[in-house]
């Protein structure tokens, strides 16, 4: 039998305690929002049209989804292809690579309000797009691109060299090797980066208040101003007139993130299962 030292016990208690506190805090937040929000989830909150009486969040839900899709359509290809260039094409002696890495690391650490300001000055004012979904989506895509790039890079680097050797050894060219062998093998890692990006987009407020604006209506094209769910919630709570509805919105936002995460995880599992 091994003797347990007192220090072992202390460590064990600390470990359990930390886990417990983390879980409790999360549970408390979720319960608090559910208790405050669920009773006010009325059908009128999901009315097709927003009025200042019903403060419907339905338009905001659709706006969020569309903003999310546009942002990803821009950020995912750029992020993935940059990573492919860095890992598969750039020579290790290339100075440009260091510059790109430094830039993406810096971009990843910038507060989102700074992106908002940049998006406002660049897309809203300089390009004269006005407060618009497009300006918001562009800003968000710049914001999440670095993290997509970094996770893709990690995923590509952790793909065994032997897969590449095997493909080249069969006479496959570089493009075919990357698209048919390396990227599919790295797909689960890339997908987890995209999931994180979705979470950031759906939950972002600061960067899009200045770019997408806060119009509560359903957008009719990409140049119209439209608020996302998170902005909707922020607006309701700052106005102070609809605190209950604000909590109800929080419940929906929470559910939305949970659903997106579950679906993406299932998708990732399916991808791996197929291989």
């Amino acid at each position, binding site marked *: 039998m091994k003797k347990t030292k007192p220090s072992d016990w202390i460590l064990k208690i600390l470990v359990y305690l930390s886990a417990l506190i983390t879980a409790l805090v999360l549970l408390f937040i979720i319960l608090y929002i559910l208790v405050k929000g669920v009773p006010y989830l009325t059908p009128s909150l999901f009315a097709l049209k927003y009025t200042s009486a019903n403060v419907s969040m339905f338009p905001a839900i659709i706006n969020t989804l569309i903003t999310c899709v546009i942002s990803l359509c821009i950020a995912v290809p750029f992020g993935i292809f940059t990573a492919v260039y860095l890992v598969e094409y750039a*020579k*290790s002696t290339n100075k440009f690579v260091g510059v790109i890495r430094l830039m993406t690391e810096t971009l990843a650490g910038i507060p989102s309000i700074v992106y908002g300001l940049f998006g406002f000055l660049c897309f809203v004012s300089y390009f004269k797009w006005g407060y618009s979904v497009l300006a918001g989506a562009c800003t968000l895509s710049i914001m999440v691109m670095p993290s997509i790039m970094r996770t893709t890079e990690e995923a590509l680097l952790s793909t*065994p060299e*032997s*897969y*590449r*050797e*095997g*493909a*080249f*050894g*069969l*006479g*496959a*060219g570089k493009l*075919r090797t990357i698209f*048919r*062998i390396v990227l*599919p*093998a790295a797909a689960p890692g890339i997908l987890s980066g995209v999931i994180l990006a979705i979470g950031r987009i759906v939950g972002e407020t600061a960067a899009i208040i200045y770019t997408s604006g806060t119009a509560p209506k359903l957008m009719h094209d990409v140049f119209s101003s439209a608020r996302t769910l998170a902005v909707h919630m922020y607006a309701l709570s700052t106005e102070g007139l609809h605190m209950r509805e604000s909590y109800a919105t929080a419940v929906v936002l929470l559910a939305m993130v949970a659903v997106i995460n579950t679906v993406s995880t299932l998708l990732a599992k399916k991808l791996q299962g*197929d*291989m």
Partner: protein
Amino acid sequence: MKFDISAVDLYYGNFHAIKNISLGIAPQEITAFIGPSGCGKTTLLKTLNRMNDLIEGFSVKGEILLDGNDIYEDRDVNLLRKRVGMVFQKPNPFPMSIYDNIAFGPRTHGIKKKTLLDEIVERSLKQAAIWEEAKDRLKKSALSFSGGQQQRICIARTLAVEPEVLLMDEPTSALDPISTAAIEDLLIKLRDKYTIVIVTHNMQQAMRISDKTAFFMLGEMVEYGNTEKLFSKPKEKKTEEYITGRFG
């Protein structure tokens, strides 16, 4: 001769990995490269289908002819690798189904017809003596097979593009004795159709399966000749010392 290697020097940057080597590799024979670790035998093997092109700083001097044509003059390296297939030290099936593993090569070279692909997959797996174990699991991931089975799948994958030469880089070093025996039997069967070059650390293996053996040391080829002669009556003292296990 299938391959004519004359006065070849290979470098990694400033490191002189292979020093002035000339040898011919005959068709329908198994040629074994033996020698202590770091002697350059794998480097030479990987030069024959230009896999070393992938390594930064690698350079070649001299001439390597495949059926009389310089492989470094011909631009189409993918076609060269189709003609000169390779099986690696560690089994490296792609993370996809067995069927897709085998079909990857033919698809790369433009075969799209389902019936033709089915035929190629079956023929290759049969040739690599893995058909019986794999036929009911063609849609299963190749990674769900054991190491020895994976290596035979990799051999089948290489055969599927109908190469003329098979390069094998210690193909059994990661396998158990039974799988090793299965692959050795397989190589002897394949000898009639292909030119096989095998790098091995296992001298018994070289003796069992090869027709010719080349012994390398520190980047130089010490001796090259019929396997039986080289192992029974080596000309060089260094060869004798190595094969009797005095170093290496």
